[in-house]
């Protein structure tokens, strides 16, 4: 049986009378967006913490929004993404003095999720930009680990898993740094979220990383890239994702000739016994004239055809080995 737990990460841009906008433009656009994801067969929905008040306003509360998802065949809201990509004097994960504020923010986000069916992942960017955090020392990673241990304990009390999504431009980006961070965090409280493109850009093999840390992994962003960062773009201030001189677009949907070996990852996932959600993410799909709608349909086609075949092969291999 093909994998049924595919969720969609809430990046989307659509044409409105006021130009290209996220579907949170108004309720009608949100409804259309959800229906499109539903038509493709997604059953989980991940979103950002900053969208929750908007959706609450449109649907009479975040649970009301989740009910609309469920009316359209979704199981539930599966993940909430929280981040401090830019370090400020208020919030910077590598600065211990800002941790109380970050924990308070997380508490507020958790409150907004009350009444939901059961969000599984509280996904965080563990650090801000590399250029604001450097030098990244062992102590830096310890400070960051302390923060997410605190948040991990907090989210666990609300039934959610704190899971860390590493960016190629974040302070923790190399294989060694990721390993160190996972070592310094409590495996019961802090987990690992595998973004296939971000790791690949950072020169880290996401398949090997998952293989080595599958016991800590609670989710994935399935997205592709065509470039490894070979010019230290990760240090580009103020932002490497849109302003790196050598690469104007980092992220692509699956099946478009990128570097990530998704069938290999799928087989590794099956072999590991992982049974959680797999999430499709399209980040900045509109660059170069792209369309989120088409990118999503093409990615789901890839899931239904290429990844379904890889999954079936992996299951057959497992069966044969028994």
């Amino acid at each position, binding site marked *: 049986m093909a994998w049924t737990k595919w969720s969609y990460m809430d990046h989307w841009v659509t044409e409105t009378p006021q130009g290209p906008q996220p579907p949170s433009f108004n309720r009608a656009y949100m409804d259309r967006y959800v229906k499109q994801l539903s038509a493709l067969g997604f059953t989980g929905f991940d979103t950002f913490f900053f969208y929750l008040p908007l959706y609450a306003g449109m649907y009479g509360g975040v649970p009301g929004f989740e009910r609309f998802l469920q009316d359209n065949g979704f199981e539930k809201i599966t993940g909430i993404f929280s981040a401090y990509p830019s370090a400020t004097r208020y919030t910077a994960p590598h600065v211990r003095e800002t941790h109380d504020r970050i924990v308070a923010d997380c508490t507020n986000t958790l409150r907004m999720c009350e009444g939901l069916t059961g969000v599984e992942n509280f996904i965080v960017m563990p650090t801000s930009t590399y250029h604001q955090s450097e030098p990244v020392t062992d102590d830096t990673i310890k400070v960051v680990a302390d923060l997410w241990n605190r948040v991990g304990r907090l989210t666990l009390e609300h039934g959610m898993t704190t899971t860390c999504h590493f960016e190629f431009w974040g302070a923790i980006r190399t294989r060694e740094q990721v390993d160190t961070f996972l070592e310094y965090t409590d495996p019961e409280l802090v987990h690992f979220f595998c973004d296939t493109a971000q790791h690949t850009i950072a020169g880290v093999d996401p398949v090997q990383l998952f293989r080595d840390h599958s016991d800590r992994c609670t989710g994935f962003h399935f997205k592709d890239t065509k470039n490894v960062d070979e010019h230290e773009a990760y240090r580009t201030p103020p932002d490497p994702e849109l302003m790196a001189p050598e690469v104007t677009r980092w992220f692509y949907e699956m099946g478009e000739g990128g570097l990530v070996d998704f069938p290999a990852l799928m087989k590794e996932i099956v072999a590991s016994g992982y049974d959680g959600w797999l999430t499709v993410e399209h980040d900045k799909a509109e660059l170069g004239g792209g369309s989120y709608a*088409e990118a999503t349909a*093409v990615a789901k086609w890839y899931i239904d055809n290429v990844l379904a075949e890889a999954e079936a092969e992996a299951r057959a291999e497992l069966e044969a080995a028994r």
Partner: protein
Amino acid sequence: MRDTLRWAYALNQWNVRLDVFVRHEEQQRALKTVSACGFDTIELASGTGRWDNISRPEVILANHGSHEGFLDFLRRAKVQGVSSIFWDPQAPTEEEEGYAFRSTANPGDSDAIVEWAEPFVDFLAGVGGEQLVVRPVGSAWMSPPLDPDGIKVVGDVWNRIGELTSAAGLGLALHYDCLGAVHTQEELVGLLDATDPATVGLALDTAEFTIGGIDPVAFYREHADRVTHVHLKDTRYADAGEEYRMPGAESTMLKGGAGRRIERWFYELGTEGGLVDVTGFVAALRERDFPGWVVVESDHGGNPAELAMLNSWYLQRELGVPKS
């Protein structure tokens, strides 16, 4: 789509200008989108010239080498085949005598138009399609009103082409549109009466009918024996009277250049304020065990992928058609 009805999706919304939708990888993305939405069969729409390489039969073959080569191209995206191809002999093309302007309403044009049909018949038969869907007559504003004799002239052309399609094992379906010189229900029935039911059928487009002031459900119930093909789409507007007669109605009416300035007429299934009784129409098709293709269109609408997904949603959630 897994259903007793046979569903297909029209690719026309992707090919909105002369110089877009040309690269094969773009076409593959569109085909994958259609496939991901649950459709494994497509309708093509004719065009002209070297860039219409998924539209014009000769250009398709030049790109893919053979009918089988084109089918292999579709199957790479898990699209299994072609239901139909749309052709408007009134639309000037390079291939048809170098942009000759001809009309089925002109008896002097009949021989040429019959000859022009041949590449479509050959191509459609070669790819295993079933229906040649045609615009039977040009726009009303471009010519004097058709009297019964004029309708007979039009009918005669299509009877001749119907013999060609029939000999090739294909159907010929006359596609009524809201701008056409055959406009009223009486005129449409007159055209059907002027054609041979054994070889010429009707393509019922739910939005075009509604805009033109013909109830698609009632018409289907009354003339189900002549309906051999369906285009399913919605509209929010009907012609208020004589809008289709405005000079340049393709732009003044359908693109909002004048009159009520309505810039978009065709909508996806389930659109807010849609005038078409889609569920009633599909129920009528089911009552009669409609054997033809039901082609969902996102015609002149917006982002084609968004509209394909919304149409797919409507089929799955409102019409109860499982995707697979």
